[in-house]
């Protein structure tokens, strides 16, 4: 069985898995990192959105072999210990989450967006295609705007 070494949330890990095992299952089933959620498995719902070398990816369609030697950040690695990331703080401020299942992915997508553009327009925010079945979109929009405004 091939082995793959990469970092997850700052820690170096090695997993033994077929090259084509989706990273999502390496994280969830082999490493017990369960913040990234399964919602579709085909990069449609984007609930599993995490970062690979700082870029938003969907681990459900990233083969574990592609993560080798790279930095994976999941929702669990976003906060600095107990100090939340400003986007997480904005999510609390707007009380965004309902069922919460999509929110790790929404937050990781928002963090990536704000990295690309510090002051996103409504059109930029519209491009986040993550599904929220509870329909919290408006609060997500407000939270992203609030985080952007605070980062000034």
């Amino acid at each position: 069985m091939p082995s793959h070494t990469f970092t997850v949330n700052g820690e170096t890990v090695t997993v033994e898995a077929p090259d084509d095992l989706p990273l999502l299952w390496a994280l969830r089933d082999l490493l017990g990192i369960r913040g990234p959620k399964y919602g579709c498995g085909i990069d449609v719902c984007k609930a599993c959105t995490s970062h690979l070398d700082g870029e938003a990816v969907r681990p459900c369609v990233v083969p574990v072999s592609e993560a080798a030697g790279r930095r994976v950040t999941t929702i669990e690695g976003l906060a600095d210990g107990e100090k939340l990331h400003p986007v997480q703080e904005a999510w609390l401020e707007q009380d965004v989450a309902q069922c919460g299942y999509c929110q790790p992915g929404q937050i990781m997508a928002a963090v990536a967006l704000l990295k690309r553009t510090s002051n996103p327009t409504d059109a930029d925010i519209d491009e986040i295609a993550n599904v929220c079945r509870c329909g919290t979109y408006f609060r997500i929009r407000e939270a992203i705007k609030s985080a952007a405004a605070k980062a000034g």
Partner: protein
Amino acid sequence: MSRHSRRRFLTYLVAAPTLAVATKLGLDAYAPGSADAAIPTPPAPADLVDLGDLLILAGAPTAHMLVLRVDEEGLVHFRLPREEVGQGLTTAMAMLVAEELDTPLDHVRVRLDDARPELLFNQLTGSSNSVRSLYDPVRHTAAAARARLVRAAARQWGLDAQDLTVRRGVVSAPDGRTASYGSLSAAAASLDLGPLVVRPKKASEHTLVGTPTSRIDARDLVTGRQVYTLDLDVPGAKPCMVRRPPTINGTVKSVNNEAAVRAMPGVLDVVTIDTGVAVVAETFGQALDAKEALDVSWGPGTVDGLSDRDIRARLKAATPSLDLLGPLVKKVEGEFDFAFVGHAPLETNSAVADVRADRAEIWSGLKSPIVARAAIAEAVGLPASKVTVHVVQAGGSFGRRLFHDAALEAAVVSKKSGRPIRLMWSRIDDTRHGRMRPATHHRIRATYAAGQVLSFQHRVAAVETDFRHGLGDALTAAAASLPSGIGNATFAQTLFLTTVKSPYHFGITTQTLTEVPIRMHTGSWRSVYSANTRGAEEIIVDELAARLGKDPVTFRREFLRTARQRAVLDKVAEEGQWGRALPDGWAQGVGFHDEYKSCTACLVEIDATDPKKPRVTRAVIAADVGRVVNPRGLEAQLLGGLTDAISTTLRAGLHIDKGLPLEGSYSQFHYARQKDSPQDVRIHVIEGADEPGGAGELGVPAAVGAVANAYARATGTRPRSFPVTFDVDFTPFPR
């Protein structure tokens, strides 16, 4: 044991080392509302007693099982006999407890209760009923605990309890002595404190209840710490997925390559169950590959030849004709179709099961766990007393988790495979073999003369909604499963009649339901019959207004029954600047809805410059749900209802083709995304009467009406079939 009563409530002290109290609720009197104006419409059943009332009455004898415990650290533990699926119920309940105890909200811990059959009707999460049914008993329970804690302090200090005050979980005497709840808890549990008068606070005394409050689980939800079913660490539990048939309710005839699949990497077991062929593996990725690799010969399902066209024809044929009218009667008519809609919660159907020879333990998101427990016990051949069913906070429901199919499958696979398993449905299976809101057909006719509406008739035909989950207990579930669907049909009529009503004085008003028994996986979908039924009526209301030469808001004002309803409508008209100028291809639309002792109005603006790609750009909602526990949570529910309405009115539905939905994922089932959602949403909560009304489903029907009416006005069309854009714009996944 100390026992005391005030009004209809009895509170018991439960034997425990620290304070634990339980409260019993008696029957609540029903007070019918009054109506006046226009040509009065006689009360419909739902005006007199709605489904929520029935549930409250049915659950009354067991409501005393609510248990609240105060530990030595002063933390308050409350076991909630309901499911949290994102509706914010745990927060609302924690607020009630904190309020009555005068203790900080973060000292309250709410745990979802396991299935408890002794609760009978009192462990069903549905019908927008949880706050309504729990508001009084939870407050009484917490008030009783507070009274005992204060009495314990008074006893210690030799003072009169009436002279003591409580702030932030600390009891204070006039002389400055203080004692925390934690320090008093053991004494409060053991002392004979004599009869206590328990009186929950009046609404005017509330300092927390009624204030916008963030979710108690918000931090867990944004850090990935929230534990859903498949995030649980149950030792040894292995991933499991099921290969499902090519048509709904298809059966397994034979597995043709079992040995080859068993030899695939990570595969641990292959097990045939009633609903398909299950694969157990080391990872879900491997289970998914293996179940896809299975070569299975399938037997027929229950609706193999059936497609949308046939279903629509059957519904249309089943919709009763409207009464014959003379040629001079003026009327407005409409015939409507609504497609099937998947519940599609983001967390797919899932469960963890550990079934042993002598006992079983199940974890799943369940809104009707008592029924689940009985069904699982029967399926695995254990007495129900040996089956523990844990209710896990879930990633959405919208009615889906009234059913326990994943839990049942997981239990059967665990038993057959002889190991604990974690079972997950794929998204494609969840969409195709999951539950759906039934397709419906509607005939509506209103007659009018001299500026008045004389009659309003609505005939609904719907594919049978499966209510076999009953009211949450095994007895009613069994009644709903009587042969020939008789039980279920009676249930459906009761539910229709106790939920659907018209808010207007439209003269003689009749609303009837005819169910067409087609064996598909249907189920209650947020607001059950009301989204389509009342949504279609709101469209006819706009057309009636136009016929009578009246503005849609003015017309509704004139015919709504109560001042309370008109205040809600006025609020959106004012805040939404009803009638303001908009560019060509844009329009405003309004809708109104009243149910479960709550009412709401919704005003939207739509950009339909491209009629195939309309976008709701702005929404203003007002709601009066009576006493509001958490305005912030209520706003979240209304926002969700709005998004549901935008989705199902404009683009989201399921096509049935030869016995299976064509759609298989969110790339095909077009639930709204950020780009489809308004950039401006204002929600106004109007504080109403003392009693809380239902709120979880309220937001959908009014918004359906508003979106459809805005679309009609923007495009100059009369939409009759929903969703309005419903092309098969994708290549379906293989069956």
